[in-house]
């Protein structure tokens, strides 16, 4: 499929997300909400690396799911999936173009969380902390897009989406939190090689599997 057509799809998905700017704004507010909640519970996170890891990862997991869900729900509700199924491109490209837009948004939210963590709780603003979040954001955007496309075709999709996403994201969260703990303990990147490798490997596996699953997921009855 020529990349001109893929760029056309990217343009459509990006235009829909950026036109309203709602989803970026909603995502940022959603992430910051978690940090405000954390303020209630933890005046400081110094000396509490495990709590800090949870503070960094929970908003990312939830926001990635919510935003991916919003985009797919609109497609399902308005029947525009029917339009896409008649478009002269393989079904896979619709899944991928939506994922790429979702990836950019999820990375942006990871950045927001990263900065908020540094500003509010003086968590170290270092590559060691940033890299796991970035790798996690990549994996989460893939899994959230797939879970959202599943939930969009089911009833009570808002409840179902996190239920579908959490088990799939378990390895990501385990490895991500492990890498974050190593970073918060001030250890250099080389110390966190194992969890970072797991993160990167799981991202690749998720992407590979999504290439096979997208056409099945978006197929018309």
């Amino acid at each position, binding site marked *: 499929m020529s990349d001109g057509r893929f760029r056309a799809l990217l343009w459509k998905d990006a235009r829909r997300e950026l036109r309203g700017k709602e989803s970026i704004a909603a995502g940022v507010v959603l992430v910051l909400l978690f940090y405000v909640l954390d303020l209630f519970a933890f005046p400081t996170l110094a000396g509490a690396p495990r709590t800090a890891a949870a503070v960094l990862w929970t908003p990312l997991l939830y926001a990635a799911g919510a935003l991916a869900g919003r985009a797919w729900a609109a497609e399902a509700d308005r029947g525009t999936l029917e339009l896409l199924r008649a478009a002269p491109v393989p079904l896979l490209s619709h899944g991928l173009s939506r994922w790429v837009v979702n990836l950019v948004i999820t990375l942006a939210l990871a950045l927001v969380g990263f900065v908020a963590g540094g500003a509010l709780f003086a968590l170290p603003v270092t590559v060691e902390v940033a890299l796991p979040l970035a790798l996690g954001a990549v994996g989460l955007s893939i*899994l959230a897009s*797939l879970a959202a496309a*599943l939930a969009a*075709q*089911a*009833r*009570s*999709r808002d409840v*179902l989406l996190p*239920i*579908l996403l*959490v*088990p*799939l*994201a*378990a*390895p990501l969260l*385990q*490895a991500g939190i*492990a890498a974050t*703990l*190593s970073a918060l303990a001030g250890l250099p990147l080389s110390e966190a090689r*194992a*969890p970072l490798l*797991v993160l990167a490997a*799981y991202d690749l*596996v*998720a992407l590979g*599997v999504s290439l096979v*699953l997208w056409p*099945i*997921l978006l*197929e018309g*009855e």
Partner: protein
Amino acid sequence: MKAGFEAKARQVSLAAVLVGFPVLLYLTWFVAPDWSYQPDVTAPLTRKILFFHPPSAWASFIAYAVVFVLGIAYLNERDLRHDRAARAAAEVGFMMNSIALATGTLWGIQEWAKAGQNALATVYSEPKVLVVVVLWLTFAAYLLLRRFVDGPERQARLAAVFGVLGFIAVPASFLTSRLLTTSLHPDIAGPGSNPDAAVSGDVGMILLVGFLVFLALFVHLWLQRLRILRLEDETAVLEAQETDTP
């Protein structure tokens, strides 16, 4: 014919279960090493759950593998019979998984309560138990997804897709926790004398018997559940025809 083979397999697995469980009980009670007089073992009786928790957990892993394979079969051949078998396997697998989770929790509380740690958190962060929890969440999500999707074809297709994703996530979660626990969580390494770590001759043999019994139980319950689902579909068709004809 397939149905004949299925009925026979159902009877054979039932026989295996009816014979197997008493044998397993006997082995657990009399042949297993008696831990009641060992100093650090506060719950000798409960430790005998050891012969039930791992076997039911392994049976639930097998169940999910069956769900995965049948999901792939459905996606290739789009034959709803594969999907019906996958659904039966998932429901029974979820039950097995719940048994594994319940027995694991009870055993963990009793076994590790003495160490003064927060028992449940320690129990569940142990890699071997954590994977049972993750699989339990995956099964729950799979069954909920089926419940919330209308239309047999759509339900079969989406369940198969989630079946594939879950089949990758669960082992990945186990490998991740196994890989990272040893390196980063020294303080939560399981209790010193982890019973199934030092698997002596008898314990190993009984564990194997336990696994075979639970496997036979899974096969029987799966085929029985499949029989019920098939009968329900057939009656639904006949009832539909009954209302059609004037």
